[in-house]
Every structure is written in C-alpha cells, then in structure tokens.
C-alpha cells in the first residue's frame, strides 16, 4: 500500500502521467469524443436535464466537467447496452443523485 512515498524515484517506471486539472471544462467536440456520444445524443441528454453544461463567461461557450463526461458514459452504457429510455435514465439519475447526497449527509452527521 505504498502511496506517495518517493514518487520521483519511481518515475522512470511510470508508464503514463496523469495531471487532472481542477475545474477544467471540455468543449463540445472534446466532450462528444471523451464521452463517446454523438452531438445529437449530447443535446438530448442536455434537454432531458441529465447533464448540465457550464457556460463560460467570455463568449458563453458550452463546457462540460469530468463529472459530466463520466455521467454521460454511464448513461450511454445503460441506453445502448441495457435499453433504458430517457425517462428511465432521468429516474435513475435523480435517484442516484439523491442517494449520493443523503450518503454525504449521513457521513457528516455520523462524524
């Protein structure tokens, strides 16, 4: 269970480096590629409120954070592999969101 002990010593063995940036938003093209969805599907997901784009101030360009990418990859799996339709996805997404929220509250109050 080594974690951050001497990461530099082992660097030569590291095959890939990952530098996730906090608060990074992906543009439309990057998002469709990373999430593996078409533009049309992305639009459907947005309209259904399954993912929320973030509009960035200067020009109001649409952006999506990593959370939205992960959410879309999951939704896409459920839709394509398991045949869920949009209302079913909405129900599942809202339940999971609530579950996550309640879990966090419970953790907080349990201390």
């Amino acid at each position, binding site marked *: 269970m080594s*974690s951050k002990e001497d990461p530099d010593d082992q660097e030569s063995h*590291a095959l*890939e*480096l990952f530098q996730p940036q906090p608060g990074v938003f992906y543009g439309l093209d990057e998002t469709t590629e990373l999430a593996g969805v078409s533009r049309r599907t992305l639009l459907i997901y947005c309209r259904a409120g399954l993912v929320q784009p973030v509009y960035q101030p200067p020009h109001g360009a649409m952006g999506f954070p990593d959370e939205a*990418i992960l959410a879309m990859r999951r939704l896409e799996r459920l839709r394509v592999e398991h045949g869920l339709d949009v209302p079913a996805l909405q129900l599942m997404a809202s339940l999971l969101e609530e579950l996550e929220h309640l879990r966090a509250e419970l953790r907080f109050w349990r201390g």
Partner: protein
Amino acid sequence: MSVGFKDYYDVLGVPRDATQADIKRAFRTLARKYHPDVAKDKATAEARFKELNEANEVLRDPETRRKYDALGEHWKDQERQPAAAQGGFAGAADGASEFHFDGTGFSDFYEQFFGSRGHGAAGWGRVRGGGRSGAAFARPGEDIEGDIMVTLDEVLHGSKRMITVRRVDPGTGQSVEQTLRVTIPPGVREGQPIRLAGVGHEGTGGGAPGHLYLRVRFAAHPDFRVRGADLYFDLDLAPWEAVLGTTVRTPTLDGVVALKVPAGTTTGRHLRLRGQGLPRGDGTRGDLYAVASIQVPHEVTPEQKLLWEKLATEATFKPRHTP
C-alpha cells in the same frame, strides 16, 4: 485472483460486539496517533492511517458493518465455492475482480465489496452475457471505477500518487502491471472522478479502450468533518467556559490557532474561522466552524456540589417553559 479477508475489528482493536460509539472512539484515538501530519515515521504511519480509515469506513456505518459481518461468516464457505457464495454480494462482480489497484489507499478486499464497484456501480459498465455476439462493429471498452483515498492535507496542498494497476490480459491470460503517476490537484472534491484515459477494458472490433475512473474519497480526519469546502470541528466546552467566555487553542489544517469563545455560548453555536477550510479550486478557501458542545463533569466532589447547589438557588435562568 482471490483477495484476502481483512479483519477490520482487529485493525481498530475493538471486539466484534463493540458499540458504534466504541468504534468511533477507537478510530479517533488511533487516527490521531497515526495521522501522517503528526507521526514521526511518516511512511509507516500513512499506511496505518489509511488502513484505519478503511476499517472505519466499513464499520462506522451499521449497514455496511452488517454486510461485513455476514461476509466474515461466509468467508470460509466462499473460498470453497466462490461462485455460489459471491452471488449474495453485489460487490463481487466478476468483471471487476480482474483489476487490482495498489496505491489508492484502499485494499482489493475493500474495492471488491465496499468500494465504488461494491456500491453497485459494477453494473454500470457490464455487458450482459459478455457482449452481443458477432461484434462486427467497433465498441469502446468498459470503464473501470475505483476509489482513491485522499487525506485532507492532500486536498489542501495537492499530491502526487503512484497507482499500480494489475490486470489479466484477456488475450494471453498473463498478468499485466501498469504504474501510473497521478497528480491530485489541490482543492479536489469528495466524489470527484479522476480520469485515467485508456486504462479501462480493451475495446472490441477496434474500439477505443475504456477509462479508469478513480473516485476521490476523503479520509476521515480525527478532528474535522467535511461539508463542501467547509470543515466542522466539535468544540467541547465546560459549562463555566460557555457562560463566561474563554480563549481556546483550536486545531486547523494549518496549525493551532487561538479561538475566542464569547461569553454566553450555547451548544450548537458555530464559531467561524474564515478561510480555514478546504480550497475550492478557484483560489478561495472554505471556512472552519467550531461547533460548541457543552460537556458536564461526570463526577463532582462534595465541595463542588455545594458550589453548583449555590448556583442553582441563586440563578434566575430558566432553560424551558414549564407548563
């Protein structure tokens, strides 16, 4: 690949019939002792701290604790006939067990039964019946999800972590090991996914490989509770301190500060230390709240009792409406 059973009760040094309060107390005591910020032997302490956190994560919730207890009882049977016994546990998804992580702070055992995959997330990416037959078209590989334990100190300063992913190559049946260096950015949030591109399952028909998503899980801190970017600290006060006011030494992530407790502080009052919380990622920081909690002495000497009685007769304070 099978995983070893973890004795979480043993890790926390509590008996199997310990109350939830006992578990909490044991965790706090040990976590304070092995907290990487205070311990002398940092590397050993950190491993121990993460182990304590994992045990606490499972045992502090009566529901996961029940699941763990049941798992323990059936562990022997399960080793004999794994397929049958694992059916009862949603976490033991077959596909997920092909992947093993090192360096996330969580053991394989935790990942399989209690982690992101154990929460039923395994169902997300699973292809029923091994995928539709005759995959003539390219299909991207499934994503893998895991947890990564991050201490509050890492949230504050950021850190670099080495993660080792071991998996069985479906083509050759050989175990493949991949070491990844992951940067945890300061201000990372609880539940935030860290995407390791192309580390998931292989795609079929020329499809791109899936990603590995490591979900950030904050390690429980012996002193602070977290809500968003704010930290909460339970500030225990003696009744006279609460009435008269005092100055107490309070821990923060950056060190100890003197906190002024105003006279007449009641239980539940939030005393704010502005900007002493976690970073938000936009350069600002949340706040630290010291939540007053008035404690009473368990024992009083006869002399002290007389003083309390004197106070009781002289005080005009009425804490409640009497019907």
